[in-house]
């Protein structure tokens, strides 16, 4: 055994070029499979995580308005098309939804203002977000420290707030923010809690109505509406007066977020809400109803297809790699049949020949397999860092590609050598 290991090792050294070729075949086969499956897995994993963030059974109604005054010519030339009056998205819409839509588990309005937050010494641009306490239940938002605000605090318009984790560190770099005061506009708010740091919320989620919890400040909506600026109190007249400049947002609310008890109800309730709101807004579609979960699931289906494709490419590269390994091994044993005959003539037993070849093939294949794993992992990280695509390396892909290519190498290195060892040495010696 030790003797044959030494013979095998010397033989590999004597045939470096062939060994390198085989190793390369295995390295690329294993590396490609691991990295491709990691890319596919990563995309899948990301969507699953996003599904957790958007929550299940949620419907989001968003108000739509144009920031710039619409003083284009067509409005003047065609007065029949002049905007019909819409009250915008209001708390009345919310109570209406509660009356009409069945099986609501939780519901919350949301307003948000671009503003600045001030601690005693630091000023940061942020978004002040006004919500009901149920908002945090809908999205499973947990706190790093302190407490959520209660319905009671909301109803009595208490001047309290929760800070996003990143924002809290920016405003209070050295001290504990709990109990401290943060100022937005003319409103002084007491910090009662800090939201747990979340993995970055991707852009596609923000477009679905999910907030960036790390950088925002959360205030009871009643407090924000009554003490900050309630856009609902702006009259139609006000709006007309501003017709040449920046138009104020006429909507009292930016969003209404509904969580239903049952997932079967989500799609029909979404449609019901659309119809009802359209009627209430005088047929003006100044809102959008979306079901983030559904959007993500559609995205997931596309991704699944992409994964299948990646998997197919990976399998093909494994098969092609395997055929390559097989070819080199077969060819190298073919050209070595005479060597086998000669070794037999000078006294090698059948078993010596078999051991030599199985050890050679195993050593080359295992070495290639290990380097291939390292390459696959490195490639996956490179894709994550340089292409900013999420990747997730699966043990299964490592196992599968390693076993398949290493086995191919060993089997096809060994089988022909095994045959040659069983042959009459005279025939092997005559082999050209």
């Amino acid at each position, binding site marked *: 055994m030790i003797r044959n290991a030494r013979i095998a090792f010397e033989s590999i050294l004597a045939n470096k070029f062939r060994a390198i070729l085989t190793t390369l075949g295995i390295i690329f086969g294993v590396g490609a499979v691991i990295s491709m499956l990691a890319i596919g897995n990563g995309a899948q994993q990301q969507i699953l995580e996003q599904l957790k963030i958007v929550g299940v059974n949620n419907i989001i109604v968003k108000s739509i308005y144009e920031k710039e005054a619409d003083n284009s010519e067509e409005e003047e030339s065609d007065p029949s098309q002049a905007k019909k009056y819409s009250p915008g998205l209001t708390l009345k819409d919310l109570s209406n939804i509660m009356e009409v839509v069945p099986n609501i588990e939780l519901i919350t309005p949301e307003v948000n203002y671009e503003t600045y937050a001030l601690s005693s010494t630091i000023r940061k641009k942020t978004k002040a977000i006004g919500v009901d306490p149920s908002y945090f239940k809908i999205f499973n938002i947990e706190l790093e420290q302190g407490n959520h605000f209660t319905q009671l605090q909301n109803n009595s318009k208490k001047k309290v707030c929760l800070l996003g984790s990143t924002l809290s560190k920016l405003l209070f770099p050295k001290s504990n923010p709990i109990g401290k005061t943060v100022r937005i506009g003319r409103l002084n708010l007491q910090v009662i809690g800090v939201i747990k740091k979340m993995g970055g919320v991707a852009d596609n989620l923000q477009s679905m109505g999910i907030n960036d919890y790390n950088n925002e400040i959360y205030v009871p909506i009643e407090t924000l509406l009554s003490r900050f600026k309630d856009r609902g109190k702006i009259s139609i007249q006000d709006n007309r007066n501003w017709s040449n400049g920046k138009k104020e947002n006429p909507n009292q609310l930016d969003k209404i977020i509904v969580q239903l008890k049952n997932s079967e109800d989500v799609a029909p309730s979404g449609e019901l809400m659309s119809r009802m709101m359209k009627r209430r807004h005088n047929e003006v579609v100044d809102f959008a109803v979306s079901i983030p979960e559904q959007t993500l699931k559609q995205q997931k289906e596309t991704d699944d297809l992409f994964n299948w494709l990646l998997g197919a490419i990976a399998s093909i590269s494994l098969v092609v790699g395997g055929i390559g390994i097989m070819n080199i091994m077969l060819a190298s044993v073919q050209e070595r049949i005479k060597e086998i005959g000669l070794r*037999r003539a000078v006294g090698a037993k059948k078993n010596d020949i078999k051991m030599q070849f199985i050890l050679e093939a195993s050593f080359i294949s295992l070495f290639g397999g290990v380097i291939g794993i390292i390459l696959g992992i490195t490639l996956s990280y490179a894709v994550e860092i340089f292409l900013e695509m999420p990747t997730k390396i699966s043990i299964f892909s490592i196992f599968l590609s390693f076993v398949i290519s290493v086995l191919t190498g060993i089997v096809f290195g060994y089988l022909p050598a095994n045959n040659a060892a069983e042959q009459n040495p005279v025939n092997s*010696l005559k082999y050209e």
Partner: protein
Amino acid sequence: MIELTNIRKTYITGELEYEALKGIDLTINPNDYLALMGSSGSGKSTLMNIIGALDVPTSGEYLLRKKPIHELDDNQISEFRNQEIGFVFQTFNLLPKLSALENVGLPLLYADGIEKEERNAKSREMLELVGLGDKLMNKPNEMSGGQRQRVAIARALVNSPSLILADEPTGNLDSKTSESIMELFANLHAKGQTILLVTHEKEISEFAQRTIVLKDGIII
């Protein structure tokens, strides 16, 4: 030392049977230098391969020092080749990727209890004996035909075999080189080596002590 009795060998290719040896009786004594002559196809290589235990006879008896070789199993036959026989082939049969030293040491790799130092020392000694003490590290393609055959002879000698079997050892060499190879065999014989030389050339056979002639599978 070696006694062959009524050795027959029949080759079967598909439906065809061909009897290459038709009852060979032959005795080889220690320190014999025997030439086996005969035209091409007369069965010389077949007989030599049977004596070297590379092939088995279809029937007949093969004794080495009274030991029946035809009854050994494959592992024992491998050991027999390793210990008792040294082959020299017409086409040298050196391993192209190995140096002269490694090629010569090959039989010792398969002999028990020989470490690398001993193997290299013996191989070097043999290469010096055949006059290639300065070519230890050369690969076969860095040597002439005559030098390659000397490496092959050193390899045949390295494990001190009872019998050297040389099948047309000068068949691929020019006459001058052939002569120097034949001188080498003569020297080895003078030192006590038993040699069986296969050739179809009369001049080459004249280097031997005794000549037997094979014709259509029988000794005449």
